[in-house]
């Protein structure tokens, strides 16, 4: 009876309780396996309370399912490793260059280029996005309509198309832009629209009472925006803005298309030069995982510090 009650309570507490023992073990395990299991459960994250605490039969079935799934996962890993080994991709010689300083230095320089593209486009797109959001929220149709059209259109055009248009269109007009800006401008143009949407949904997620109170105090539209609405909206959209930065960083990989030497393009060059194509791409993928996971963790931390921003903030387009 007791475990059932405990389960019921935790199911209600659900999200709040966070991680907790999902599958009560048949008997108290000794310290080390228990710690390993606790770690695994932390990794597995909270469940959605879709199942009762299993009885003896359920526990047996879960144990069988666990064993079978472990075997399948192990087989998958083995198949991949085998395929790599069979084609000589696991030779130490194929990987050794990634421990040499010149290569590391080369990749770090490329990472810095990636970060520079991300930062510069973010710094330009963020204020313009805010202005665009304000224009779209204004009462003047003359401002509202162009802003709305810009946001909707730019969010519906693939970034690659825009980059090709810049790459091939600008020389046609007699304009010669450095490689860096050929990558940055298209990223800025699309992300301004995305940032504007994030800001706008942040403003709209605020309780109406805030605006009404400000108006009741006799503040004008712009003063209300400046003193009451925006400071709160920016606070609430902070996590969504950081998540969008992750997407900005992903967008910078399109440097590959314009031959700007950022991280992905560096991997391509390195792979072709050393005949370590798979290794170079894998190493770079790992770097992206590390950097983006750190950024995502920052977003999570900010969200917790702000006491949970509204989940509606940002009609996030994934990717």
């Amino acid at each position, binding site marked *: 009876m007791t475990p059932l009650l405990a389960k*019921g309570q935790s*199911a*209600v507490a*659900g999200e709040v309780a966070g991680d907790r023992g*999902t*599958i009560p073990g048949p008997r108290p395990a000794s310290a080390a396996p228990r710690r390993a*299991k606790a770690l*695994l*459960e932390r*990794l*597995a*994250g909270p469940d*959605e309370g*879709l*199942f*009762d605490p*299993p009885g003896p039969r*359920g526990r047996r079935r*879960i144990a069988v*399912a666990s064993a079978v*799934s472990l075997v399948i*996962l192990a087989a998958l890993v083995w198949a991949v490793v085998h*395929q*790599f080994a*069979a*084609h000589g*991709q696991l030779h130490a010689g194929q990987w050794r260059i990634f421990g040499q300083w010149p290569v590391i230095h080369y990749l770090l320089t490329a990472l810095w280029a990636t970060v520079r593209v991300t930062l510069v486009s973010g710094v330009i797109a963020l204020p313009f996005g805010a202005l665009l959001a304000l224009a779209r929220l204004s009462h003047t149709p003359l401002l509202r309509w162009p802003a709305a059209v810009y946001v*909707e*259109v730019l*969010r*519906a055009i*693939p970034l*690659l*198309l825009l980059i*090709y*248009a810049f790459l*091939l*269109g600008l020389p046609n007009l007699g304009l010669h832009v450095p490689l860096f800006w050929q990558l940055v401008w298209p990223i800025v143009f699309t992300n301004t629209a995305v940032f504007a949407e994030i800001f706008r949904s942040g403003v709209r997620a605020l309780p109406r009472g805030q605006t009404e109170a400000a108006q009741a105090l006799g503040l004008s539209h712009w003063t209300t925006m400046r003193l009451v609405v925006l400071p709160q909206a920016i606070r609430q959209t902070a996590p969504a803005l950081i998540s969008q930065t*992750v997407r900005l*960083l*992903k*967008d910078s*990989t399109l440097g*590959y*298309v314009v031959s700007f030497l950022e991280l*992905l393009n560096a*991997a*391509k060059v390195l*792979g072709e030069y050393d005949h370590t194509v798979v290794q170079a*791409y*894998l190493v*770079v993928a790992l770097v*992206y995982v590390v950097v983006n*996971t750190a950024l*995502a963790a920052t977003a999570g931390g900010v969200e917790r510090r702000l006491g949970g921003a509204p989940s509606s903030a940002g*009609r*996030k*387009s*994934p*990717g």
Partner: protein
Amino acid sequence: MGLIVDHIGVFGSGLRVSAEISACTFVLAALLGAALAVCQISPVLPLRVFSRLYVGGVRSIPLLVLLTLFVFGLPEIGVVYSLQWTAVTAMGLYWAAFFCEVLRAGVRAVPRGQIEAARALGLGFGQTLRLVVLPQAARSIIQPAASLLIAVTLNSSLAAAVGVTQELTGQTELLDQQYAQPLLTFGAAALAYVTVALWVGWLAGALDRKLAVSR
């Protein structure tokens, strides 16, 4: 303008290939994403850990990195099949992680009382999922899934960057290199993408209104 009219067939076939790639990617992502989501809400610990790590890892890899890894990496380890399908595989694996998140958000949107009531009636994990949770979750995921479909369609253009030039963006680039009319060609392609995105959004809105349940 004559250029566009003369080459309307090029745009048509480009759009068709783009739609094909997007549709295949979306179906693959939906199947894999559903499997990942089931893993993640199941009581089987190894599956849950695997699903969490997969989603977390794949979401932080840029799509283009995954595409280059598959398109140029797979032949190196002896796996060779058609370029278009290699791109679809990579994109399907990528979007599966996002689809899993959409599904999980849908499951989370089902009120807890529903799940508890199902359990109180003695339904097992599979039954609860099939009879109570999924029918309700399906309604709330229409809009996010449509946003995902739009994102898949727009990002299918990245296939052109790794050599699948038959699709719309690739065709547009080739056409432009031939005729050097960037404003016209890219404008027409942009119009096609915007139309598709608006149409999918409108369709999802209509479907959502039709199936919505007021709570």
